[in-house]
């Protein structure tokens, strides 16, 4: 075993000298120690899958975990290979990563930053994980990303949509494949303008925490750019379940569009309440009243049932995409588990593959080498078309899907239809965009750890 502490560059270690014998401490064991945290041995490499297993996002966490297991299977040469066959990079050959068999450990983030960090630390300190990935909320992503930066391991973010993850809180050791609030706004606004016109007055209900703020900011900016007016923005507590007192004033506020900057249970309940109060059928300012849900989660949308029909939103990926990569992924996931994967599953699967690929191309597990391999890397065949991992902020740039609740679903999975694939150019922004932390935001130095 070659494990080491993670926050010190110089590590004190004793070598194994047989049972009972203690050795004097010495700096950096020479064998197998490549000067970075948790350098793997010759036969296997351990990845840490840190997902919510309890709490409101437990189902998304479970889906992420399924995708991880599938990715590990594919990397180790099992199954049908999934997206390995469609991935533009061909260095992965089903023999693990750099010839080492991929092992994994799992943990529960509980969607709490403390618990998530505890779990990640145990993976790093106890299990010798070389990379941490997962999560289903931005608070957790930011917290764990900061930890990985400190520890000197790579963090491949799971489902996190807040601008901050690769905005003001970006870190050199952290990477995000998932899209973000800004992209949602940029992709959604033109579609909304095309469908609902440019003379619209929007009313925002925003979940009162970090992700809500960045999403509201992004949607506001982009809709106002197409001529919409923002009538009011109201913050709702995260723990709210009955949104009636927030929904009721909307109709008489002069607004004709309601934007629900809510995710998960919040979204299900606020949307259900809005429909109950008749907003979907109402008229305002001589137009049909409309509801918009910026970030859709298909898993969660099930909880809202019929209510999502006809409502616009955006999503990172959807199983109905017809490109080769998506089809391959849906096929292997669906065959193994019996239902189609969610966007959370997709992004985590892709992140695992991208990590493995970067290690292989770099020829090293050292975080800085991996980061270099990922930075400004362009790839295709992983479901979102041509994608760029931008070096400036470690954010993936790819096409964004604008979706709409399907009118006539054929199955319980068939809830959303893709109405437009917004080309990547349209959602591009500069790394020092004010919504992304401005000029102050920086990745810092990449950290190899001990």
């Amino acid at each position: 075993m070659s494990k080491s502490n993670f926050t010190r560059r110089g590590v004190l270690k004793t070598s194994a000298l047989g049972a009972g014998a203690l050795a004097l401490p010495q700096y950096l064991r020479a064998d197998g120690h490549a000067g970075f945290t948790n350098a793997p041995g010759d036969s296997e490499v351990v990845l840490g899958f840190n997902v919510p297993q309890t709490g409101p996002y437990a189902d998304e966490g479970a889906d992420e975990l399924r995708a991880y297991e599938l990715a590990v299977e594919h990397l180790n040469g099992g199954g049908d290979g999934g997206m390995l066959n469609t991935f533009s990079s061909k260095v992965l050959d089903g023999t693990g990563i750099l010839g080492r068999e991929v092992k994994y450990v799992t943990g529960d983030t509980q969607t709490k930053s403390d618990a998530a960090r505890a779990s990640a630390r145990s993976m790093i300190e106890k299990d010798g994980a070389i990379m941490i990935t997962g999560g289903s909320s931005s608070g957790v992503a930011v917290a764990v990303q900061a930890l990985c930066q400190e520890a000197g391991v790579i963090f491949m973010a799971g489902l996190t949509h807040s601008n901050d993850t690769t905005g003001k809180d970006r870190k050199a050791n952290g990477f995000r494949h998932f899209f973000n609030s800004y992209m949602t706004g940029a992709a959604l606004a033109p579609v909304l303008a095309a469908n609902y016109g440019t003379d619209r007055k929007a009313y925002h209900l925003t979940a009162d925490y970090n992700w809500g703020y960045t999403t509201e900011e992004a949607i506001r900016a982009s809709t106002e750019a197409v001529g919409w007016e923002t009538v009011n923005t109201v913050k709702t507590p995260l723990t709210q379940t009955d949104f009636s007192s927030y929904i009721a004033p909307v109709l008489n506020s002069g607004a004709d569009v309601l934007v629900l900057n809510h995710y998960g249970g919040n979204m299900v309940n606020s949307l259900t309440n809005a429909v109950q109060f008749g907003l979907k059928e109402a008229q305002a300012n001589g137009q049909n009243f409309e509801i918009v849900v910026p970030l859709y989660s298909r898993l969660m949308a099930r909880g809202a049932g019929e209510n999502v029909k006809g409502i616009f939103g955006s999503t990172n990926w959807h199983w109905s995409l017809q490109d080769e990569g998506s089809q391959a992924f849906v096929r292997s996931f669906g065959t193994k588990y019996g239902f189609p994967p969610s966007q959370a599953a997709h992004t985590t699967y892709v992140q695992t593959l991208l990590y493995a690929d970067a290690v292989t191309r770099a020829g090293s597990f050292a975080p800085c080498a991996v980061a270099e391999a990922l930075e400004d890397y362009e790839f295709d065949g992983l479901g979102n078309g041509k994608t760029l991992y931008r070096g400036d902020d470690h954010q993936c740039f790819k096409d964004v899907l604008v979706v709409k609740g399907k009118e006539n679903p054929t199955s319980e999975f068939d809830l959303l239809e893709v109405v437009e694939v917004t080309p990547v150019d349209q959602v591009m922004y500069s790394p020092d965009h004010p919504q992304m932390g401005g000029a102050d935001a920086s990745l810092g130095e990449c950290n190899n750890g001990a």
Partner: protein
Amino acid sequence: MTDQTTQTPLAKPAPAKSGLFGLEGKDATLLLVVFALVVFAPFILNPFPEGSGMAQFNAGYPDLMQRFVIFGIFAIGFNILFGLTGYLSFGHAAFLGVGSYAAMWSMKLFTLNVIPGIFFAIIVAGLFAAAVGYISLRRSGIYFSILTLAFAQMSYALAYSVLTPLTGGETGLQIKNTDNPLLSSIPEGEIGRANLFGAQMGSSYEMSVGSWLFTFNLGYYIAALFMLIAFYLSIRIFRSPFGMMLRAVKSNQQRMNYTGLTPKTYTLYAFIISGMYAGLAGGLMVAMDTQVGPERMFWTASGEVVIMAILGGAGTLIGPVLGAGAIKYMENILSKINKDVLHQWFAFLPEGMENVMVEVANIFVGKQWHFTLGIVFMLVVIFLPGGLVEGAQRVTARFRRKKSTSNTPAE
């Protein structure tokens, strides 16, 4: 009885000489035992060799060891209030959270040395506890509990939302590369790390013996030192006139009043002390892992420390520490056992049997670890009303009885 530590008066007429740091008899022994456990924790908690199937149950890694002692401190402090006075605070996590924020700001603005941070954490938490306690102690019983709960929930809700500039909101506070504390010089762009006069909390000394690997982490030993001091102080408080007055508060406030004493003042001081313990725990959490988020103050976190105290044995000296250890162990170890691991364990069985065993075991671990937690709560409270301490006492009593019957032939 279950509860030796509160009920056995130490009034042995003899001693005038003072034992270990002024502790005598059982207390001195207890302190020594805890000292030994804490110092040798890296061995004790890592009983299984690396790579073996049982290694999953090893808890001797820095993060969990730190958590054991930090939550031990939290529970010890809570027990000074709840165990002695009987006042059940349902908002103690607020003091932990406030302490964490204070320590974090001290590190962001003042110095990355952990000592001032911990100091600020204790002070700020103490002040906050004084304010909350002053108001809440106007009521007793469940009314008191709900008042403390209300204050804590308000702290949580505000920290999560409107106080975002101060608390970082949902994402919490971390040290950033833009932070440049007054007294620490950090190279431009570098992220500062918590340290103790230059020694970093994360540094460890690793020792491998055969296929065992033991980690001795500096941060852990610093936290452990604080925990030993906190534990020692709590013994002193339990045995002091002040501690006796606190037990009098629990027993009969009316009699206290008519004996010329002010139970409320005593309780308030106990509340503040226990708030300061929580602040210390919060400060240490930040020192060990430079991050703080608001969910540290959520009511479930307050409930957790209540449960730690009751599970271990409220009113006993060591109980809360045991309770804290048990809960943190389950949280961190059980939740990490997944089907893959189970398959490894049961691989020796024939395949059909293996799958059955895996399915059965899987109900209790991994994403179902809460289920086990709930069952353990129920079993302990049903069968061991005095908590884990009672369990330990029963075991030792049985052991002693056996020993004495075998050692002493019939006379």
